[in-house]
C-alpha cells in the first residue's frame, strides 16, 4: 500500500465536466477551464468524506474511491 490514505481514480472519458465534484471537494478536484479536471489521486484522510460526497454527486459516476471498508 503506497502511503496515501485515500485513493481516487476518475474515468476522464466518462467525465463531461459537470463540476459537481469541485463543489463538494474543492481541495481535491479542480477544473481548469471548463472541462479539464485536475484532481489529487492520493489526498489525505481529512478529505475522505468530501471525496465520498463528490463521488456520489457525479452525474456520470466517473469517480472511484477506495473506501474505508474496502468496497471500491
Amino acid at each position, binding site marked *: 500500500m503506497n502511503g496515501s490514505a485515500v485513493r481516487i481514480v476518475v474515468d476522464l472519458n466518462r467525465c463531461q465536466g459537470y*463540476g459537481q465534484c469541485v*463543489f*463538494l471537494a*474543492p481541495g481535491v478536484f479542480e477544473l481548469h477551464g*471548463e472541462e479539464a479536471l485536475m484532481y489529487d489521486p492520493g489526498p489525505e484522510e481529512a478529505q475522505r468524506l*468530501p471525496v465520498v460526497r463528490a463521488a*456520489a*454527486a457525479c452525474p456520470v*459516476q466517473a469517480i472511484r474511491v477506495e473506501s474505508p471498508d474496502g468496497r471500491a
Partner: protein
Amino acid sequence: MTEEATAGQAGVLARILDYANRANPYPLYAELRNTPVFRAPNGAYVVSTYRDIWALMHDPRIGVSAMSAGMGGGMGGGAGAGAGSGAAAGAPGGAPGVGGGAFIGMDPPAHDRLRRLATSHFEQTEAVRPGMLRTATGLIDRMQGKQQIDLVDEFAYPLPVSVICEQLGVPHEDEPRFHPWSEAIITALDPRPGQQDAAAQASAEMNQYMAGLVERFRVEPGQGLLSGLAAEEGLSTQEVVATGRMLLIAGHETTVNLIANGMLTLLRHPEVLERLRDEPELVVPLVEELLRYEPPVQIDPKYMTLDDVHVAEFMIPKGSRIILALAAANRDPNRFPDPDRFDPEREDNEHLGFFTGIHYCFGAGLARQEAQVALTELARRLENPRLLADPPPYRPNPTLRGPRHLPIAIDGIR
C-alpha cells in the same frame, strides 16, 4: 405506432397531468413507458424511457430557443385555449415564465457564454454548508414547543428562499414581495390548459424589482451573483435580470420540493429515517436516490427538434416539440433494477433528477447540499415525527411536483 396506442397513451398523459393523480403518478409513468415515444394530441412527442431521454439530452439536433416560455407550455390532453400555449409564449426574453431571456431558454453558443459567466459568480462549494446549517437550525429551533408542524411552510420553503437570496444577493426582507410574483409565475408554468394567463403582471413586476437591484449593484457592488454579473462588462441589465430571476424562481421552487418530497419519503420509510439519525452520512447517497425516486422536476418540456431525429423505432420530425418524462425515466427497469424500491444506498445511480447534458441543473451543487443539511438536521432533531396526512395535499403543478403542506406530528425537538 397504432392510432389506438397513441390515443391510449394520450389518455395516460392526461391522467398524469390530472390533479387527481398528483400524489402517485408513478403507475401511470410506468404505463407511459410501454410506448417509449408517442405523439400527443397537441403535436408534441412524449419520450419516457431512460436510454432515449439520456441520448436526446446529449443530442445537438435538439434545442430550446424556439421554446420561449421557459418550462411548461401546452401539453394539455385535450382541446382548449391552453393546448397551444407553447405558441402563445410570445417573444423570447420578454415572456412570462422561468426562462424568459435566461440561458435555460437558449442554445449554444449564447447559452454557453451566459452560463459560464453565471457559474463564475455563483458560490456552490462546501463553503455554503455552515450558513445553511445555521438557517436550518434556526428554523427547527422555532418548532420548539409545538406538537404539530407544517414542514413546508415552516422549513422546506423558508430554507431554500433564505439560501438563494443570500447566493444571489437579493435582500431576504423582500421575500414578502417576490413570493407572490414567484407563485404566480410558477402557476403560469403549469402545463395544463388555462393556467398561463395570470403571470404577465407578476413577471413585469419581478423584472422591475430585479432591475432595480442590478442598478444598485452597478453603483455599489455587494455580495452574490447579481452583483457579480452586474459588474461584467459584456452583460446587459436585461440579461442579468433574466438570469437572476430564473435562479431565484428555480432556486426555491424546486428545492422546496426536494426537501418536502424527501421528508415525506423518509416518513414513509421510518427505518431509513432512523438509520439516518444514527448515520448522518447516509444522507449522501440518500439524496441522490430521492432525486431519482421523487424528482422535483418530473417533466421537461422545453426542447424542440432542429432536424429529424430517430428515437427508438420512431422518427420525430424536424420542428417538433419534445416532452421528456424524467420521472418515468428515473423508474425505468431497464436502467434501474427494482426501480420502485427506495434504496438509500443504491449504486450506479445516474439519475435524471438534475437532467443531463448542457442544461444540467445550474444550482445542483447548492440544492444537493441544502437537501443533505436539511434532511440530516430534521432526522436528528425531530422527535418521533409522524405523517398526519398521507398523501398530503399537493401543489397543483405536475411538472414541479411536491406537497403544498406536509403536516407532521412531533413529540418535541432535540
